[in-house]
């Protein structure tokens, strides 16, 4: 059960089980869910109705693996996220370097269609590879390739400010662009910590929009994206009530390393 009525259901991202093979992580998620043991303190039971396949999972996500996953867990709607390992050689493929990894995006699109995934989301990527406008244009091209909505996931400030979408101003530009997106609330916690200010109205607007394909949740101390499980309610917790009813929320908290926040 979720914490409160009206709050969206929280689904599992396989980032919760980093280092396990895709099928191992999926099996862990579904098995523990069936036993009622896939839980987080903050959110209660975690759903496997939607499961996100992620780059933190090892092994090749091939066509045959996709078929096996769908056969094993027909009740699950799988979708891809970011640079999940769809080619033998692992790539840092994101929306800024879309053209440089055209073969990776082509294979990811095939698999996404095989899963009949309702959406795909990718990281924005690095400033050295594209301007914000070019990256957003790439997101539109990716949507044509995938045949489903493709969302860009905003990032946060890092040393040298190398990542695209790292400030409230850039989040606003993404929102105004009309390109679909994923909001990682733990990334926004870092934006808040580094900028020293909250933009609650912008966050609420973005969460409530139909352009918001996914919301990602996990905990961190505001300094880095450490993917901890939410053991207490972060500042953004009340904003979950504003999430659009069509948006799917995934927890990325690491269930293999439930570290306390210092």
């Amino acid at each position: 059960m979720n914490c409160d009525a009206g709050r969206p259901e929280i689904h599992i991202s396989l980032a919760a089980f980093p280092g396990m093979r895709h099928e191992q992580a999926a099996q862990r998620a579904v098995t523990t869910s069936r036993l009622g043991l896939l839980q987080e303190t903050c959110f209660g039971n975690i759903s496997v109705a939607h499961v996100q396949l992620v780059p933190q999972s090892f092994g090749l996500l091939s066509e045959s693996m996709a078929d096996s996953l769908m056969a094993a867990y027909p009740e699950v709607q799988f979708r891809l996220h970011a640079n999940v390992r769809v080619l033998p050689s692992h790539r840092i493929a994101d929306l800024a370097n879309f053209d440089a990894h055209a073969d990776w995006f082509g294979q990811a699109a095939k698999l996404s269609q095989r899963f009949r995934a309702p959406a795909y989301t990718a990281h924005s990527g690095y400033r050295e590879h594209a301007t914000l406008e070019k990256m957003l244009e790439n997101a539109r091209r990716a949507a044509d390739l995938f045949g489903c909505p493709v969302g860009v996931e905003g990032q946060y400030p890092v040393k040298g400010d190398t990542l695209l979408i790292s400030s409230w101003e850039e989040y606003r530009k993404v929102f105004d662009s009309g390109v679909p997106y994923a909001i990682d609330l733990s990334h926004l916690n870092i934006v808040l910590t580094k900028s020293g200010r909250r933009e609650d109205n912008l966050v609420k607007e973005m969460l409530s929009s139909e352009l918001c394909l996914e919301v990602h949740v996990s905990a961190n101390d505001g300094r880095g994206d450490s993917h901890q499980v939410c053991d207490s309610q972060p500042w953004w917790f009340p904003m979950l009530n504003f999430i659009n009813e069509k948006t799917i929320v995934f927890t990325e908290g690491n269930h293999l390393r439930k570290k306390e926040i210092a």
Partner: protein
Amino acid sequence: MESMDQNLADPDESNETEQTFLQEDGSTNLQALVLHNKAAIMAALKSNGVTNATSEYSGSGDEGSTGSVTVHPENTAALEYNVTVKMIGSTFDSSAEKWITKASDSNLTLEQALRDVTDQLIEMNGHAGYEDGDGGGGSVTFDVENDTVEQDHYDCVVENVHSVHEL
């Protein structure tokens, strides 16, 4: 920074069975898998006159991957050399309604084999998820002469210098 010398001993392949690489619960016996693949890769490196090979990996912000693979002396052709390594794969048997996990031979280029064993070592040594947060990285070096494999791993940690000033 952490340095780890695996000093992995060569396996006795004649005694290897399917169960060598899989635990009773179906999980992978990574130590056995890495030992087997180490022997195969060392033999391939040796036959190509390579004295050492290094596979690097790094990542941050949820994105990580194996980067460059280099050999010494420089030998591009050696990286394309085919080597047979054991890889774990699973398929779902719909009639039995269970996953069938097998360790099977995979014929890979030496470059790809080095990348895959790097992934196996990252998992075996507890560094899976290194790309989360501020990230991390490292390298895996195969030293042919000394028959050793060394994983040198680092995790990035943000350091804040905190001051409070009161008027």
